[in-house]
């Protein structure tokens, strides 16, 4: 089952992989908060000075940079156009071409927004790359996350590839029956119902069996669950989390005082 989970986890052996899952979650959370609290372009610094060296230490710098580039490129293009060309605060013209002018104020703002997003995304990706979802859920459950919520998250991850396969089958079956999926907008709109209705009805009706199977295994019983696997929190992990929280708090306070 594990190999089918659509996650970003990249197996490997490194200091980062071995850390307690919640330490890495804290890292991602603190970085997001600090990035948005820090002024101007300093979010880029968090990405460059913390996340990238850490990723490099786990041999993950290349996939991380590639993912950042792919995700942020469309946003960057839209931001440069919307903010750089049309931001009403633009006064200093950097480049003029035809009727369009690239303004310095808008461009600086675009880079700030992009830096915050890149920093938040980088920190989260580092956490997801090095943390197996099973280990994360075990750790969260040990901390008192309700088992129902654990079920929701893992079950969603398992269901996704199955449902994608069913969507492809529905698509192929309806096309074999002569359904047109290309052409004018009304044609494509008409194709929507024959695609969506069988998919949704099938998926909903499947849940009956699953509910019975879970109930038969005591799913809704009250009380704590005993896990076969245990996640070890260490003293150094605890110190690390404290340092991260203090660091993020300092950045937020400094941002306020400015």
């Amino acid at each position, binding site marked *: 089952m594990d190999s089918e989970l659509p996650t970003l986890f990249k197996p490997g052996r490194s200091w980062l992989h071995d850390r307690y899952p919640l330490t890495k979650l804290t890292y991602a959370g603190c970085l997001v908060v600090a990035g948005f609290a820090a002024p101007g372009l300093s979010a880029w610094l968090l990405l460059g000075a913390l996340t990238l060296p850490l990723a490099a230490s786990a041999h993950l710098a290349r996939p991380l940079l590639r993912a950042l580039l792919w995700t942020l490129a469309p946003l960057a293009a839209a931001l440069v156009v919307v903010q750089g060309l049309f931001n009403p605060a633009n006064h200093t013209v950097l480049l003029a071409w035809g009727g369009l002018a690239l303004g310095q104020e808008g461009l600086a703002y675009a880079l700030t927004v992009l830096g915050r*997003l890149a920093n938040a995304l980088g920190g989260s990706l580092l956490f997801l790359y090095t943390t197996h979802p099973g280990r994360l859920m075990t750790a969260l459950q040990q901390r008192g996350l309700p088992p129902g919520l654990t079920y929701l998250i893992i079950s969603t991850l398992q269901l996704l590839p199955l*449902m994608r396969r069913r969507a492809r089958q529905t698509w192929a079956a309806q096309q074999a029956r002569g359904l047109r999926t290309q052409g004018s907008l009304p044609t494509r709109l008409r194709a929507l119902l024959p*695609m969506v209705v069988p*998919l949704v*009805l099938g998926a*909903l009706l499947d849940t009956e069996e699953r509910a019975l199977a879970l109930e038969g295994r005591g799913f809704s019983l009250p009380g704590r669950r005993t896990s076969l696997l245990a996640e070890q929190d260490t003293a150094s992990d605890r110190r690390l989390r404290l340092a991260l929280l203090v660091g993020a708090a300092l950045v937020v306070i400094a941002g306020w005082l400015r």
Partner: protein
Amino acid sequence: MSLSQSFRKEFTTQALVLIPVGIVLNIVVGQLASALKLPIFLDSIGTMLVALLVGPWAGALTGFLGNLIWGLITDPVAAPFALVALIIGLVTGLLARAGLFKRWWQALLSGVIVTLALAPVAILVRAYLFGGVTGSGADFITGYLLKVGQDLFGAVVVTVIASNLVDKVITALLAWGIVKYLPKRFTARYHGAERVVG
């Protein structure tokens, strides 16, 4: 009934198996809509279905958790909009509970109300977190409005409402139709469905 009671009453095993299905339907039907190159998202169909069948809390959780998971595994832009998805589920469930999902024209009206309810949060996220863009086709509307002299906030307000109104109305109609169409044997197990099927 107190808030925590109504909350606990909703999360039965029946509801818990439905929520992941709702989340995955959001993702898969959303991708289907973009494969058909339709100008609507349809990525809250599962949220609305859960909200209609189970209730507002389950709908809210479906939307929130769904966007968070989707943001973490594929499209990080989706994660901050988890709050918007939460509102879609919550408001749809409340409208159904108020009896506003019985007829097709009520579903249509509910779609409009859901759009108005999600707008404030969606506008704030889009304008301040993303600087007015999300890297989607709707950015062209924002760019155009800025070009003709609108300020950024105004441009984002128009973009958010225009791109959501049609989508949420069609999604609400579709979800209403599907709940009506489901066999009685199925809907009988979900309390929320009574108020839709009547």
